């Protein structure tokens, strides 16, 4: 698949781990290494399958997790000096997660304050509005990927080997999603994938959605945890079509299927 989507420096491996810890409703201090490692690697597989830019940090973390996990499975060797080495690595990981979590929460607290040019304005505000009206994205990339993973799992295995080259562009799918939102304003995440019959189509649809989020054309929200993910248009269809035509977004990113 020659498509290549570059996301802004989104979230890193620590975000992914915190996401998994929250999803499994476990605490950071008793992180179940085997389970979390497995889910971490699965997520990386999905990201790789999507050709998302995998920062090297994700792979370093993967090797750390595998190392900790393997040390936990092996009995300590006779006369081994640093018997606690894996324990130290685990401790270090927990310490880093806790510390990162602390700053994440602090940044959420800061975002709740009365922000200049979002909530309050001064005489010099007009030229430099910096915030969207509804503040911050409510769903992380990982929440979306988890939802996408569930969509992929539901796709039946193909019975015959497909040899035809499918011509679907991310750009077309972006227009398709926008048109759908034009008719309905809001749609549930899963319904975007209803017409797709192949894995390729699912992937292209998902990439198109990510592009639209990146362009701030749509927003994704979830009213309650584990509740349905709602996709909503935030700019008018005309504006977006114009922007799509003008910038050719998606094309430079290497669509060439």
């Amino acid at each position, binding site marked *: 698949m020659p498509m290549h989507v570059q996301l802004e420096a989104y979230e890193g491996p620590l975000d992914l781990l915190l996401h998994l810890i929250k999803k499994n409703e476990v605490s950071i201090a008793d992180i179940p290494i085997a389970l979390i490692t497995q889910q971490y690697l699965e997520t990386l597989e999905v990201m790789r399958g999507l050709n998302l830019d995998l920062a090297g940090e994700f792979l370093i973390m993967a090797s750390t997790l595998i190392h900790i996990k393997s040390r936990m499975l092996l009995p300590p060797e006779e006369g081994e000096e640093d018997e606690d080495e894996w324990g130290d690595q685990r401790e270090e990981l927990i310490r880093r997660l806790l510390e990162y979590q*602390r700053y994440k929460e602090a940044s959420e607290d800061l975002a709740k304050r*009365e922000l*200049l040019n979002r909530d*309050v304005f001064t005489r010099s505000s007009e030229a430099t509005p910096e915030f969207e009206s509804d503040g911050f994205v409510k769903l992380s990339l990982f929440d979306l990927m988890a939802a996408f993973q569930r969509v992929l799992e539901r796709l039946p295995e193909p019975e015959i080997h497909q040899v035809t080259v499918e011509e679907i562009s991310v750009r077309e799918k972006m227009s398709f999603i926008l048109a759908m939102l034009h008719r309905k304003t809001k749609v549930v995440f899963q319904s975007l994938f209803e017409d797709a019959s192949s894995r390729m189509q699912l992937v292209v649809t998902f990439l198109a959605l990510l592009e639209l989020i990146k362009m701030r054309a749509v927003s994704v929200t979830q009213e309650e945890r584990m509740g349905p993910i709602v996709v909503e248009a935030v700019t008018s269809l005309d504006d977006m079509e114009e922007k799509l035509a003008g910038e050719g977004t998606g094309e430079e990113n290497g669509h060439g299927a």
Partner: protein
Amino acid sequence: MAMEREKLKSVIESLLLVSEAILNLDRLSAVIEGVEKKEILSAIEDLQSEYETQERGIRLVEVGGGYQLRTPKANSDWIRTLFRSKAARMSKPTLETLAIVAYKQPITRGEIEHIRGVSVDGIIGTLLARQWVRIVGRKDVPGKPFLYGTTREFLELFNLKDLTGLPTLKEMEEITQPQIPEQNTLPAEESKVDSNETSNQ
């Protein structure tokens, strides 16, 4: 020159109205000659409570070491409609990086990346361009990396009087009161930086 209370309030209101930048007490006092700072402060307090109780469309806030007229949050929808504001959003990585700089300053890029577990290359550039952070010195370690700290614009952005007003960091009492470092980091402060580093590890 003595001044009546109501006149003093009126003058302060005018000065704040025409100032785009924050006015601090020294500046106000230099302009309004012959009036004691104490009186100016008390007039400011009067104005503050008047705007508040009369539910006026302006507020007099103490922010970034001075005073500024701002709009109340309750009116933000109308203002955004007026501006047809279709503004860029502050991303979570940007906000997190800013929070780390705010609480751990002075801090190097490498130290921020260690906490976030991912590169902050582009983000630091954005924060510098927005003037929410600035380079406050260089750390005395191999490579002499830049040290970053927050600015007055940062305080304005988050409606903070000073850094002590930052929300308290959970389970980290020892760093709840970071100081704004001076532009030229002195050798004495360098060593303070180092000792902070060790105490946080």
